[in-house]
């Protein structure tokens, strides 16, 4: 089955195009049905495989760990594939250029909120941080608004939300999205208020805004589905080792760490657990896919929700590799301010959750 991805050919007739679209729709429907069939049977299959197939004993460390892995690994990968595909299609409607056009010249308050929201749906990878930053800042997007985007894009991404939804339910996913967006907006507003434009590397503002990318053509539905498939190939193809690694660690924690071990130093009563979680998260780098299974295992062992969320956000949003990349365009002082502002936001969220829930 090959969907046209090369330059669109003129359909011989509207009839052919219509039939092809119908064929695609049917294929998608079939795919969704097959997905659901497999997904709903995963838990039972994992259980059977571990205890009947491999002959491990229930309630032993090894048995628990293996069952966890055999259940979670395909489950997470399937969820990931589904969500990345769907979001790949949604993202074909949004491009970085369009986001920039929307944000240029907007006032700070409105702009920061818009930027944070657009950060969720605009495709973004760490290595694009620099050209994106420069592109935004030199075409009239205020510094604070740009930062709102830079915070929300990696942190509140569809992968994280999908996995949180699949593993913990919609409430936690919504909480993560809401607080992540809030942190993005507030960070942008604060940085904008501080008028730190002088702390951007001087050469940035001197850059001539280039001619810009190729003119965007409107995509057909075929093209959008192809975009979805391409996203799956690209993202899942890159991320699956991290996911499996994360789940393996999670499986180890699930099977071998005693039930309330985490509660002692990641639990609600250890007030220093939140700052510690944030600090530990900074040098660690993982995309959302790898860290969430670990998060799940930690939660299962008694770690407090706020602490774990803070850890997760810190790993994703305050990543050392991204700081190193951004060093090209931001002075060390500005990076420090960035880390401080976002870090504080994460801290507040962490404490809030531990306190309230």
């Amino acid at each position: 089955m090959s969907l046209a991805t090369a330059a669109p050919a003129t359909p011989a007739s509207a009839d052919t195009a219509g039939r092809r679209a119908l064929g695609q729709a049917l294929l998608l429907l079939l795919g969704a049905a097959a997905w659901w069939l497999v997904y709903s049977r995963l838990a039972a299959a994992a259980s059977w495989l571990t205890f009947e197939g491999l002959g491990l004993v229930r309630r032993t460390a090894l048995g628990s760990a293996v069952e966890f892995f055999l259940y979670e690994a395909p489950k997470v990968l399937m969820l990931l594939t589904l969500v990345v595909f769907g979001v790949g299609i949604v993202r074909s409607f949004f491009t970085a250029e369009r986001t920039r056009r929307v944000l240029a010249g907007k006032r700070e308050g409105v702009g920061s909120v818009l930027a944070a929201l657009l950060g969720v749906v605009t495709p973004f990878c760490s290595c694009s941080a620099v050209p994106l930053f420069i592109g935004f800042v030199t075409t009239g997007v205020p510094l604070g608004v740009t930062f709102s985007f830079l915070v929300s894009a990696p942190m509140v991404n569809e992968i994280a939300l999908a996995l949180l939804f699949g593993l913990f339910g919609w409430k936690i996913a919504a909480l993560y999205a809401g607080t992540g967006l809030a942190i993005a907006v507030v960070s942008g507003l604060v940085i904008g208020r501080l008028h730190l434009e002088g702390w951007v590397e001087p050469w940035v503002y001197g850059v001539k805004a280039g001619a810009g990318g190729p003119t965007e053509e409107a995509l057909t539905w075929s093209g959008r589905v192809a975009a979805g498939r391409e996203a799956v190939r690209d993202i899942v193809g890159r991320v699956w080792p991290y996911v499996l690694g994360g789940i393996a660690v999670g499986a180890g924690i699930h099977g071998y760490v005693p039930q309330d071990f985490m509660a002692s130093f990641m639990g609600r009563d250890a007030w220093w657990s939140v700052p510690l979680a944030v600090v530990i998260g900074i040098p660690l780098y993982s995309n959302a896919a790898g860290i969430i299974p670990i998060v799940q295992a930690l939660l299962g062992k008694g770690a407090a929700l706020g602490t774990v969320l803070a850890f997760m956000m810190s790993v994703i949003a305050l990543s050392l590799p991204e700081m190193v990349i951004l060093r090209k365009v931001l002075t060390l002082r500005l990076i420090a301010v960035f880390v401080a502002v976002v870090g504080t936001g994460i801290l507040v969220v962490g404490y809030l959750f531990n306190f309230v829930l």
Partner: protein
Amino acid sequence: MEIKILGPGCANCKRLYGEAEKAVAQVGQPATITKVEAIEEIVGYGILKTPGLVIDGKVVASGRIPGAFEIATMITTALAKA
């Protein structure tokens, strides 16, 4: 014909380079493929997302990795226009 790959050196840029090489081999047109890694230069082209593909000074793709076949099509289109 001059083809440039814009990117700071991440895996995607290397992939694009590979696809561009294949495309050039397919088309059979002599072309130089250079990698531009200096951020200042990349930004001068005005792209927002790396990797970027430039054919004879014109940005033909940014933020994605067109396959060798698509790049070959772009090359022949550029040749036809020249």
